[in-house]
């Protein structure tokens, strides 16, 4: 008899544990919903037009971390970039800017996320940085950041197919190879 009671209790706990899981998951989505809806409000209180500046800052931080071969810091910057993209409000963008934004947003977020979870694998971070840099370039060509950026080109990366990156300085500091080949590359364009 005792055993039967015991087993019924067990089944009950298992089943209730499952339904509990469901309800907490729902609550979580609820709270994240409110978090995203409150984000634009804080932008308004800052009295600034929504801009790509925060995303650009995070991207440059990431670029500099890769330049100094620091995967852990690159991961942090990637996380920051992901958050900045999440916050980026496209409501005041012009139609052509909205089009670029829609094209790049998911891709940037995905690359940023991969970079943020691969702090131990800098080579893998750089693969995503290559694709991310193209997205960022397309974004800042359309939605101008407040600072001047330089589009630099590394001819060796990608089996010599080449790769680009964006930089805040005129000096070449190559993020694809770090200190191994720091000054390799050429400035291609001034983006302002």
């Amino acid at each position: 008899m005792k055993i039967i009671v015991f087993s019924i209790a067990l089944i009950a706990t298992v089943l209730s544990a499952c339904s509990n899981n469901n309800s907490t998951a729902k609550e979580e989505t609820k709270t994240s919903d409110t978090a995203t809806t409150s984000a634009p409000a804080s932008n308004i209180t800052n009295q600034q037009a929504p801009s790509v500046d925060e995303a650009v800052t995070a991207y440059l931080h990431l670029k500099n971390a890769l330049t100094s071969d620091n995967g852990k810091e690159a991961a942090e910057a990637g996380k920051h970039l992901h958050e900045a993209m999440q916050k980026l409000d496209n409501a005041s963008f012009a139609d052509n800017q909205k089009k670029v934004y829609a094209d790049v947003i998911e891709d940037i977020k995905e690359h940023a996320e991969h970079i943020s979870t691969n702090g131990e694998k800098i080579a893998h971070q750089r693969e995503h940085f290559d694709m991310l840099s193209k997205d960022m370039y397309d974004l800042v060509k359309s939605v101008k950041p407040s600072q001047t950026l330089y589009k630099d080109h590394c001819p060796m990366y990608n089996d010599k197919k080449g790769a680009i990156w964006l930089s805040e300085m005129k000096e070449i500091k190559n993020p694809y190879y770090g200190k191994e080949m720091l000054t390799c590359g050429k400035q291609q364009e001034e983006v302002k």
Partner: protein
Amino acid sequence: MSKAKKILLGLLVLFIAMQFIRPAHNASNTVQAADMVTHFNTPSNVAGILSASCYDCHSSNTRYPWYANVQPIGWLLANHVKDGKGELNFSEFTTYSKRRQLSKLKSILNSIKDGSMPLSSYTLLHNDAKLSEDSKASLIQWTAKVIDSLSRL
């Protein structure tokens, strides 16, 4: 009845109860028009490699082994498939934007080159999913070709 026996019996009951909670199978049973293989006119040897080594986690159709019916293994598998599909779903490949397709293809190329895919935990149980050097070469060659043609569009 001794204490140890009671605990064992309790665990058995728990195990049996677990069997009733079954995750839905990942099976759409149709080849979708958005599937990578249908869309890019993939050669049959490459399609075969993709289906043997990638599609279990990266498509809307999983071939389930018998032990997938035993819980909690089935739960673990369902989770893996969910993660894999979230990352890349070949069955819906052409619904991605061109930019995303290119990103995914480059990631495919990189992960095959560096051997991070298919996962070693997967090939351990699926011997037929292991990529031979030949299969690797064909996959890499084909992926590079698709990347080239897509970027020229």
